[in-house]
């Protein structure tokens, strides 16, 4: 999470940078359009999509309610097959483990495949402080790392960049012959990353699922970079959020179908890696050491409330980002967190605290497109509303005097809960309209009216309200 000096993760209410950037808007429109199209095709092909969603939701709800059991089961299975399990209460615990391991093995450079959890805990930055270089090997991650930017999207980190921009980046930083050919861009990355893979002694990956009954870590990918990260180096470290555990192998059939179709519109990805251990005695390759780091970092707090807990159902497909009209406009970086978009708006304040990300729950028009598309049925707008209430309580509870907005809502509630007071308010508004708008509309020179009026008209209050008309309804009808 990227905090500013006040320790607050801010969404700028004037999200200008992305909105004003015409190239970025055009890139986004192009790529998001393609993503939505293939997603639509992939989902419409599945007759019982809703049934699959319900199944997944039920499995997640069950697992989270019995998480202490399944985590121990997972640990037992992994240990039983020779893997090591490390528990990390918070980001620092996880970072300390990786840094120490790298130091012990005298590793100066490591390879890593995509892991949102590693972004969440700030792994690359922590390693960099220790002068250990992290090579991102997923092409999208590689591109944003090269550009010195955080990922823009959960499953498509470089979604916002055009091939032209990427080509420029590659020719500047890697000395590639200027070319906007995507084949050549990919080949350049492949050649360079091959070198890194072959020399790597430590590989770090994330995990999409961890199956308790078999102790299996599931890594879903398309490029084959995760496969190399977890095969070539002598040490493999998997970072897993504790909510990733699922009870049974069989349920993977459902989760994979939901995940890949939601994420990239594929029936399945090129590779689904199921890892149970490091190299076994008679196997020709594979890591000698296999570590599974189970990271809490605020997750267990979400378990308290069964509604809020559903946030942890998330399988990081990114579908809610693609359909979100707000994300499409402000882009992934505006959220200032590893998790952008609707899921980020509910996850970020819960993993940190509502005080540190008070604006996130408000960065939504509550249109509900996210909940509709979510493969595990997270009621995102519902959770946003709860978080908005928490944010107001936190803000107003601390304030020395009642803030203007709170005061306005108190006044509003007072007048709206009595017909007499409502009528007085009606009269007052009409008076104000006369005063400021000369009956051309409600042109009041203070917020929220002034903000609305900057680029839009407000309608005028009707000469007669409906209730006045209704009183004389015989005349009317």
């Amino acid at each position, binding site marked *: 999470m990227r905090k500013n000096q006040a320790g607050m993760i801010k969404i700028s209410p*004037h999200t200008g940078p992305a909105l004003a950037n015409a190239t970025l808007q055009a890139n986004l429109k192009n790529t998001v359009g393609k993503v939505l199209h293939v997603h639509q095709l992939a989902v419409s092909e599945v007759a019982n999509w809703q049934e699959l969603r319900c199944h997944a939701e039920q499995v997640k709800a069950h697992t989270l309610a019995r998480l202490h059991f399944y985590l121990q089961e997972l640990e037992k299975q992994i240990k039983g097959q020779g893997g090591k399990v490390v528990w990390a209460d918070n980001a620092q615990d996880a970072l300390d483990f990786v840094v120490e391991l790298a130091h012990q093995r005298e590793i100066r450079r490591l390879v890593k495949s995509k892991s949102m959890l590693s972004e969440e805990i700030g792994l690359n930055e922590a390693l960099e402080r220790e002068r250990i270089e992290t090579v991102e090997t997923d092409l999208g991650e590689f591109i944003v790392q090269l550009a010195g930017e955080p990922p823009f999207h959960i499953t498509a980190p470089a979604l916002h960049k055009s091939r032209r921009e990427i080509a420029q980046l590659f020719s500047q930083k890697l000395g590639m012959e200027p070319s906007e050919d995507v084949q050549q861009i990919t080949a350049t990355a492949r050649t360079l990353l091959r070198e890194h893979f072959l020399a790597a002694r430590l590989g770090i990956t994330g995990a999409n699922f961890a199956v308790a009954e078999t102790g299996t870590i599931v890594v879903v990918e398309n490029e084959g970079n995760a496969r190399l990260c977890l095969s070539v180096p002598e040490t493999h470290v998997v970072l897993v959020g504790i909510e990733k555990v699922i009870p049974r192998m069989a349920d993977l059939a459902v989760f994979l179908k939901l995940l890949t179709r939601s994420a990239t519109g594929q029936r399945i990805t090129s590779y689904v890696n199921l890892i149970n251990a490091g190299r076994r005695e008679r196997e020709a390759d594979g890591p000698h050491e296999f570590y599974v780091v189970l990271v809490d970092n605020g997750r267990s707090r979400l378990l308290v409330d069964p509604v809020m807990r559903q946030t942890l159902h998330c399988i990081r497909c990114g579908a809610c980002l693609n359909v979100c009209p707000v994300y499409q406009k402000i882009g992934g970086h505006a959220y200032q967190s590893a998790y952008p978009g609707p899921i980020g708006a509910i996850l970020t304040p819960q993993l940190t605290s509502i005080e540190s990300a008070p604006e996130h729950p408000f960065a939504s028009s509550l249109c509900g*497109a996210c909940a509709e598309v979510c493969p595990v049925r997270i009621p995102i707008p519902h959770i946003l509303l709860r978080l908005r209430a928490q944010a107001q309580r936190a803000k107003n509870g601390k304030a020395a005097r009642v803030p203007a907005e709170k005061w306005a809502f108190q006044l509003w*509630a007072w007048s709206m809960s009595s017909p007499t007071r409502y009528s007085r308010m009606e009269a007052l508004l009409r008076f104000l309209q006369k005063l400021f708008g000369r009956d051309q509309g409600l042109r009041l020179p203070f917020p929220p009216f002034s903000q609305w009026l900057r680029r*839009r008209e407000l309608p005028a209050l009707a000469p007669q309200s409906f209730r006045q*008309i209704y009183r004389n309804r015989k005349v009317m009808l």
Partner: protein
Amino acid sequence: MKVSLFVTCLVDQFFPSVGTSAIRVLEKFGVHVDFDPRQTCCGQPASNSGYSDEARQVGAHYLEVFQDSEYVVVPSGSCCTMVRRYLPELFTEESPEARKARELAARTFELSEFLISVLKVSDTGARFPEIVTYHDSCHLLRELGIYEPPRRLIRSVRDIDFREMANSTRCCGFGGTFSVKFEDVSVALAEDKVRAIQDCGARFVVATDVSCLMHLDGLMRRNHIPVKTIHLAELLAKF
């Protein structure tokens, strides 16, 4: 059949013709429509902004006004969603208010839904010789799951040239206080919507919610775009 009309505060103050049109349509099909003048607002603005206490205060008043109604009809998908889905949640689960709110929720209908599902009316006899498109309001579509009823009603209007715009189900960017808190995003989304409306050649855009229409109309008027907004009730009352 007796129906209580909840006109909503915006209609009451800004767009009264939506209320009178709703009455005209309902009465045409033999419904006795009652308007209780004690009604104010459903509490949604506060609920959506995180002011639960204030929302509860207004919600309690709403419950008091409508608790004895046989049916409540609302010419708004958004306010209907507030009453049906979120009002019960404002109160503690086992409280009498929560129980009342849940019961009332089951008797509350959005106008197009009420016409199609309860009255079984898909043609109000209206005539409107114009090119018209329809904007799905988010709450009506995704919270209440109503897609077809407004379209059926529009298609049955005589002489109408009904055209679907691209991405009709995409948000117009209003979102209550979102429209002022994230003003520039809100306007950018409305601009996309207006472009889609213009691209399909429509001269009128119909919706079930005056909030969306107010937002779109506000932008179109400021930019002198010759497209008019019209609420579904107003369209259906053109007989």
